[in-house]
């Protein structure tokens, strides 16, 4: 195997792991912050239990978002030095800003939120989770700005064969960024909503205690999910309008429409000359899975939303089973979406400027293979472990969540789990 293929596989694997966790984090943080807000205002204990229960699952999920993100940040420099040399001036800027402007405060405040239960004034503690949420979305915006530059380079000028950053605002106004960011944010809402709805359904099916917590959580989830769903569809189709302008070939391959393919081929010939500038045709499959999956989820959760009337959703039982079964689906769809966006950009690393082949580092394949195996095994094992823990804590329910436990009570923290 060659370096290029291995470097691509490594990036695809790490980012796919990363998206699974950050999408859910982005969705859950807003829901948890909203729960804590209702609790802080009304003082009703059911919202405190909801905040701690879903907050626990949020932070367990967060762990893998962090560790996969750490690896990814440094993989750019390791495996893609051609990208850094040709376009690092521009591509690196949003990554730098993400760490300095957003992630720095996000991580600091998340630590304070986790360890601040009952220690910090309650309004301050509430402010912390909202700051974490805001920083998380700002962080997502900068990362997507970097990705949007790869899809549709703007805000730069070529000086003596090197690309330099000239306009930061243009990076943020990129047509490849705005709708995509809202699409991702909507996917987070759908994923978070389905997570709430699915786990709450399990507890209602099993008739565990804490009915009040899960009855309310189910309602929150069933409201958030279709809201995210319609929004995803809206911003998904808006993106296609933009993609038709800046990457006509990607859209033609996604649609597998012969007429569009022919037009795109002519456009490529005119712009880049002879050569194959089409992404692999199989991206039509993940595209169809993503789109139809989003339709099914949106329709199903919309019906569930109606069934909230007089609690038919729980009385009929069947919707609970459906929601439970569909809970992980948004995460699958997110990975499909990213495959379409990223593989669909091929053969370009930076569209029209640099091919993926030119972007790869001149590293011996054996080193890239060794690191690929290492990262995949370690991160893969941690992914499995983290989901196992999430399931375990989800089944345990809101009594005895680890959030807010003190040094004096570790015995309780140990005993309760049995």
């Amino acid at each position, binding site marked *: 195997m060659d370096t290029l293929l291995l470097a691509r596989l490594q990036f695809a694997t790490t980012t796919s792991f990363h998206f699974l966790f950050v999408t859910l984090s982005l969705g859950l943080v807003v829901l948890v912050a909203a729960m804590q807000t209702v609790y802080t205002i009304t003082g009703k204990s059911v919202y405190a239990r909801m905040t701690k229960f879903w907050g626990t699952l949020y932070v367990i999920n967060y762990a893998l978002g962090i560790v996969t993100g750490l690896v990814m940040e440094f993989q750019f420099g390791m495996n893609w030095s051609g990208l*850094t040399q040709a376009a690092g001036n521009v591509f690196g800027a949003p990554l730098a800003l993400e760490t300095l402007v957003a992630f720095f405060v996000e991580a600091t405040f998340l630590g304070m939120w986790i360890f601040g239960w009952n220690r910090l004034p309650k309004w301050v503690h509430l402010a912390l989770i909202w700051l974490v949420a805001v920083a998380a979305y700002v962080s997502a915006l900068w990362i997507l700005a970097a990705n949007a530059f790869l899809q549709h380079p703007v805000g730069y000028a070529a000086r003596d064969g090197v690309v330099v950053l000239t306009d930061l605002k243009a990076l943020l106004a990129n047509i490849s960024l705005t709708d995509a960011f809202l699409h991702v944010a909507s996917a987070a809402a759908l994923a978070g909503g389905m997570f709430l709805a699915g786990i709450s359904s399990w507890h209602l099916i099993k008739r565990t205690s804490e009915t009040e917590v899960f009855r309310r959580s189910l309602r929150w989830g069933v409201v958030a999910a279709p809201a995210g769903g319609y929004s995803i569809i809206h911003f998904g189709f808006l993106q296609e309008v933009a993609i038709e302008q800046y990457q006509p070939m990607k859209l033609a391959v996604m649609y597998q429409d012969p007429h569009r393919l022919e037009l795109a081929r002519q456009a490529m010939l005119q712009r880049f000359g002879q050569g194959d500038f089409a992404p692999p045709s199989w991206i039509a499959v993940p595209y169809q899975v993503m789109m139809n999956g989003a339709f099914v989820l949106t329709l199903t959760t919309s019906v569930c939303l109606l069934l909230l009337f007089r609690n038919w959703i729980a009385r009929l039982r069947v919707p609970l089973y459906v929601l439970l079964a569909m809970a992980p689906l948004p995460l699958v769809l997110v990975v499909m979406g990213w495959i379409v966006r990223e593989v669909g950009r091929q053969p370009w690393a930076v569209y029209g400027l640099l091919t993926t082949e030119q972007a790869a*580092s001149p590293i011996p394949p054996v080193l890239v293979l060794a690191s690929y195996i290492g990262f995949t095994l*370690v991160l893969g094992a941690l992914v499995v472990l983290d989901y196992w823990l999430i399931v375990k804590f989800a089944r345990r329910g809101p009594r005895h969540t680890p959030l*807010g436990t003190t040094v004096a009570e570790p015995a309780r*923290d140990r005993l309760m789990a049995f």
Partner: protein
Amino acid sequence: MDVVWVVLLGLLLGGYFVVDGFDIGTGVLLRRLGRGEGERRMLITAIGPFFLGNEVWLVAVGGVLSGAFPLVEDRVLGGLYPLVAAGLLIWVLRDAAVWFRSRQPSLRWRAGWDRLLVAASTAFAAFWGMVVGAALAGLPEPGTTAGAWQLTGPYALLWAAVLVTLFAAHGAIFLVARLRDDMATRARERAARLLRPAAALLVLAVGAGAVFVLPREWSVVLPVTGVGALAAGALWAADTAVRADRHARALVLSSAAVASPVLMVLLRLAAQLPEGTADAETLRTLGGLALAALPLAAAAQAWMWRAFRRPVDAGTVVFF
């Protein structure tokens, strides 16, 4: 403008060594200082509130490298490829041990993750030593990867020993300030036992570097050796301070010593660094917003340290 970014990079990486040094050192000493599961959880709780806010300094180093020093980033990450890949894996394992160890009640589960935390923290400290050693020997030419001798030869291994000892001593002093009673006493004894060996190893590594490794130019050898000597002196003074129960002073001194390898590397690479910055126009466009964000990040960190300044007691929240 270049100078501003070099200083920022140095501050972030030096700051990272100081603050994540607390966590690395605590990890290294976890099973020696903590007797039994309960005490080990106390130790992890001592670093707990700061853990995320500490390692984020390294994430920021990565960001500044890619934004302002794309070519340096290439040469460091590509040139030290096998070492960097191993370091990332160790970092991931260290974090996994911290996040997962208290998520199950079983004592066996917790003991297993504690062992991993000690191993990963020690390996992580050694990794930083090897990076310092390899960097002091000079970054490989662009597009090439350093050989096994530079990455894992005796000089790199000597630096690994320096940083394992140094981070452990630094972490022990931090724990004296964060704990009470018996555990604080044990941390103090441990710090007193580690500081002089750390100083001796540092002198040895800096001396060996000056004789065998550094380029024979006074403009490099003098400042690097000077910083090394000052750092060794700081460790010696920290030892005196610890024995006199002056912990704040000891912490300042050990922080200076822990950050010193970063300064040495920057001085060594000073000639190579400016070539590696992004062009002036990019830095100007990037600069305003990035530099404006720094006071905000600093304020968040200051607030974190202030809010959790009280030593661990029965009412302290646990999580990790």
